[in-house]
Structure formats: structure tokens, C-alpha cells
């Protein structure tokens, strides 16, 4: 039975409220590509990715066409390369990133993630080599994304890894200085990283996953914002209900796309990631949702509470709509990728300190924030440590994706283009954290009882 209103509302969401599927991400295990000879290992990596993901883009495009909903990105995530290449007799891990990049190019995907290491408790030789290769790897490749997990609720914070990542981010920025430090937009430092995240730049395919699966990340801030206009001034119960219903609809679409893609590709369906992922386009912003709730500018007092409500309602609404939920699942607050966040940061209302508070109640962390190019590596490490502490103590995923834009100062801005957007340079505290970072060692895992 045709329902005129339902059909036209779906079309309106797609045409005017930026409803889209943010990504179909194919996870591919590379555990069987290990080889002592680095050239053989790189060839196996290339071959396996090409073989498994050959049909990903054509299938994604066909599903997009038939269902009439845009699927913005097609991506690949792989087993952390620090594990895959651990047995290789080489100091230089950059060729593995080049093999990933070449395979991604052949498959026609937008990004490939998994140039990664998991070092929350300690660093093996493979982990050290991978971290050392990150700046070169990100400057020499086009679509490779890298992530390093430096902390977890069970292991604590590896402060030696935190120190190295501050330096790694600085070096990556320098090597991609001609593109405003773009390399750093493809590098995430995690606490409690998840193994089935389909979103970049932090996607990798965990070792406990199967050989291959396909997951979907949904989007839809514009749809939520539009729905909330109907309950202006109403109590929060109505707000939460409206968000839940909208999230349900968005997620059902994601589930449908995931099932279709899984069936056609002949690989298992992984998860639907229930995230509200913004874009720099007007009308597709998480910050504007918070403002719709009654805040003059995102970042003012009340923002954390508004975000907590939004994040929770999105999960509650989305959970029932999918048979398997996972990944990061929550509202994203990447500054450069969100039109409202950019405006709030430019106006000076939204600061890094407020963003840090906001990350206590949402997914994922201090994301896509441009800071002055002369920010010391120790300060970046200290920001990572703060954010990791938030994740560690609250048993949630947090992440840092900072861009110390070379040669830029507060008042300047950087342009990355496309989904990565543009960002004003945000100030950091000038007081030094060097003594704190120089200590090294590990911050012990926190108590799981006596919660206060």
C-alpha cells in the first residue's frame, strides 16, 4: 500500500536533508600475508586486497543506484600492518603502505585504513617500526590512513607511545607542509580503539574478525536537525523521542544497504555503525543540532548536556533498527568536517578545552582540529594523554586527530577540501607540558569500582 507522505518524506531526506550512507567499508584480514621477505609480504598484501575488494566499488554503485540513496565513500580496512609485517626482516615499513595505496587505487576506493599498531601495553619491534614509518608512509601515499592505539581501560596509558605519537604527528605535518599538514588528517591516536570501525581515518580490521566482512557507517545530522524543528521549545522527552525515531529510520537504511552489499559481494555482514557523521555542507552539521536545542552557539554552557542527550538517543533509536551494531556508534564532532563547528570555532566560543569536555559524552574525540604549526610535540602528546585519560576512565573510545599546520598561527585557517573540510587554527595553552611527557612509562589502569 502506497503511503504518499512516507515516500515523499524519504525523498525529501535524500534531496534536501543530506541523508546518505557515509561509507561501505570492507574489512579484509591480512594475517595470511605474513612473510619474512618484505617484498613477498607487500605483494601478498596487494594481491589479497585486490582480490577481495575487486567488486566493492561496482557493487556499492549498483546498490546506490537501485535504492536511490547516495553512498558517499567506499573504503577498505585491513589487519593492523604492525602485526602483518612483524615477521618481515626489514626496518622500513613504508613499502607496505605503498602496497595498500596501490591496491586501493586499483579497487577505486576512497580510503584504506589499517597502517596501524596496538601498543596500549607495550611496543613490539613491529610496532616500533610501524610508528617510525608513519610520517613517510602518509606523505608518500594518497589514501592510506593510519592509527595507533596508545591506551585502554584494562592496560592504562602507554606514555612512551604517547610521547612518540606527539613527535610523529609533528613530523607528519612537516612532511606534508605543502598541503597544510594534510597527512595528519589521516592519522588517529586512540584509546580503547574498536576493531570493527568502518569510519576513517581510524578504521582497521581487528585480529578477532573473520577473513572478510562488510560494514556500513550511516550519517544523517541534517535529517535529525530537520526533525527537531518540529519540536522547538518542547520538553526534552519529546526531543529524545524525535531523535530516536529519526535515528531508527536512518539506521534501517544502513542495515538495508549493508545486507544488500553483503549478499552481492558474498561476504558476511559485519556491523552498522550508528554514527551521526557530519560533512562541511550547510545543513549536515552536528553543531547545528545542538544549536537547534536552544544554544546560541555550539560550545557555550549547556553544550555537553545537549550532546549527551543527542548521543544517547541516537544509539537507543538505532539499536533496534539493526541486527548487528558496532564500530564507534555515536555523534562525531570533527571540527573541520562540520559547518557549524567551524563557525563556532571561528567565533571563539568553541575551544579545545570545551571540545575535550564534549568528548566525555560522545563519540569519538578531539577530531580534525588544526592547531598552530609551532605547537611543541610535548604539548600534542599532553593533549593525547588528556584525551586518552577521558577514554580510559570512562571505558569508552576516545581519539585525537590534530593537525599542527606548518607555518600557520591562530587567526589563520587551513583548507583540506572535500569531506575533510576547512578549519580555523585553534589556540592551545602556551604553558609547557614537557616535564610531564618526558617521564615515559605507563599510567596504570584505573579502578573499575568506587566510581566517583
Amino acid at each position, binding site marked *: 500500500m502506497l503511503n504518499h507522505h512516507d515516500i515523499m518524506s*524519504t525523498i525529501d531526506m535524500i534531496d534536501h536533508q543530506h541523508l546518505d550512507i557515509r561509507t561501505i567499508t570492507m574489512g579484509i584480514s591480512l594475517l595470511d600475508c605474513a612473510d619474512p621477505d618484505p617484498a613477498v609480504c607487500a605483494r601478498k598484501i596487494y594481491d589479497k586486497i585486490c582480490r577481495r575488494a575487486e567488486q566493492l566499488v561496482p557493487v556499492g554503485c549498483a546498490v546506490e543506484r*537501485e535504492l*536511490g540513496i547516495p553512498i558517499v565513500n567506499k573504503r577498505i580496512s585491513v589487519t593492523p600492518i604492525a602485526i602483518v609485517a612483524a615477521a618481515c626482516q626489514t626496518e622500513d615499513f613504508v613499502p607496505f603502505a605503498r602496497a595498500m595505496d596501490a591496491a586501493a587505487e586499483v579497487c577505486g576506493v576512497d580510503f584504506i585504513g589499517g597502517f596501524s599498531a596496538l601498543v596500549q601495553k607495550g611496543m613490539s619491534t613491529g610496532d616500533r617500526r610501524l610508528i617510525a614509518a608513519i610520517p613517510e608512509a602518509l606523505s608518500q601515499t594518497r589514501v592510506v590512513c593510519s592509527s595507533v592505539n596508545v591506551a585502554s581501560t584494562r592496560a592504562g596509558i602507554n606514555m612512551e607511545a604517547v610521547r612518540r605519537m606527539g613527535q610523529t604527528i609533528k613530523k607528519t605535518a612537516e612532511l606534508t607542509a605543502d598541503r597544510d599538514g594534510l597527512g595528519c588528517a589521516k592519522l588517529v591516536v586512540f584509546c580503547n580503539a574498536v576493531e570493527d570501525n568502518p569510519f576513517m581515518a581510524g578504521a582497521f580490521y581487528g585480529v578477532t574478525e573473520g577473513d572478510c566482512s562488510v560494514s556500513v557507517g550511516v550519517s544523517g545530522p541534517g535529517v535529525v536537525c530537520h526533525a527537531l524543528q518540529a519540536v522547538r521549545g518542547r520538553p526534552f522527552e519529546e526531543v529524545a523521542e524525535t531523535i530516536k525515531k529519526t535515528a531508527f529510520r536512518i539506521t534501517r537504511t544502513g542495515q538495508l544497504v549493508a545486507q544488500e552489499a553483503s549478499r552481492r559481494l558474498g561476504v558476511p555482514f559485519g556491523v552498522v555503525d550508528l554514527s551521526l557523521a557530519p560533512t562541511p555542507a550547510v545543513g549536515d552539521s552536528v553543531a547545528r543540532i545542538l544549536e537547534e536545542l536552544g544554544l546560541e552557539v555550539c560550545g557555550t554552557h549547556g553544550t555537553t548536556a545537549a550532546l549527551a542527550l543527542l548521543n544517547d538517543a541516537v544509539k537507543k533509536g538505532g539499536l533496534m533498527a539493526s541486527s548487528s551494531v558496532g564500530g564507534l556508534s555515536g555523534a562525531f564532532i570533527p571540527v573541520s568536517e562540520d559547518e557549524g563547528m567551524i563557525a563556532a570555532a571561528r567565533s571563539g566560543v568553541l575551544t579545545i578545552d570545551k571540545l575535550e569536555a564534549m568528548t566525555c559524552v560522545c563519540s569519538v574525540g578531539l577530531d580534525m582540529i588544526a592547531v598552530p604549526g609551532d605547537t611543541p610535540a610535548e604539548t600534542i602528546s599532553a593533549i593525547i594523554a588528556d584525551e586518552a585519560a577521558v577514554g580510559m576512565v570512562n571505558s569508552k573510545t576516545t581519539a585525537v586527530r590534530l593537525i599542527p599546520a606548518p607555518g600557520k598561527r591562530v587567526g589563520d585557517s587551513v583548507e583540506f577540501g572535500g569531506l575533510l573540510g576547512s578549519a580555523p587554527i585553534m589556540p592551545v595553552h602556551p604553558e609547557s607540558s614537557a616535564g610531564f611527557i618526558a617521564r615515559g612509562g605507563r599510567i596504570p589502569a584505573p579502578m573499575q569500582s568506587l566510581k566517583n
Partner: protein
Amino acid sequence: MKAIITVVGPDRVGIIAEVCTLLAAQKISVVEISQTIMEGTFTMIMLVEATPGAPEFSVLQSSLSDKSREMGVSIRIQREDIFNAMHTI
């Protein structure tokens, strides 16, 4: 496979006839039609089904897209599944 065709544009004589003629030629059966005119804008929603001999989805989609340009109205075809997923439990 069932699909939903939506036609939106300025009202004029013969829109339904033209779209249905194309569908008949392509061996597409019309299961249900709902149509309104609001302030001069014609909106039609059709539930259609492929019969034996019907072309591939992408072929039908491109002939509807040609027709859309020729008639100066928006015509789109989407599988019914997306609407069911979004609006039914």
C-alpha cells in the same frame, strides 16, 4: 522485484499517459498509482513490478531519466525496499 517511481513537476496534460506508455513498452506492470496536484505541482507515485522480458534495473532507470529530460519533470525509480525499511517495523 518491485520498485517505486515518483514523478514530480509542473502539471500538464498527458504526464501519466506518457510515463505509462514507456513502462508498457518496457514490460513493466503498474501495480498501484497515487497522484495529487498541489498548487500546480503534479506529484505521482507508482508501485511497479517487472514482468518477464523487462530490462535490467539500470536500463529502465536510464530510459526513465531520458524521458524525464524530454518531459521537463523529475522522474526517479527506487527499489521499494528503501521505503519499507524506513517506514515499517
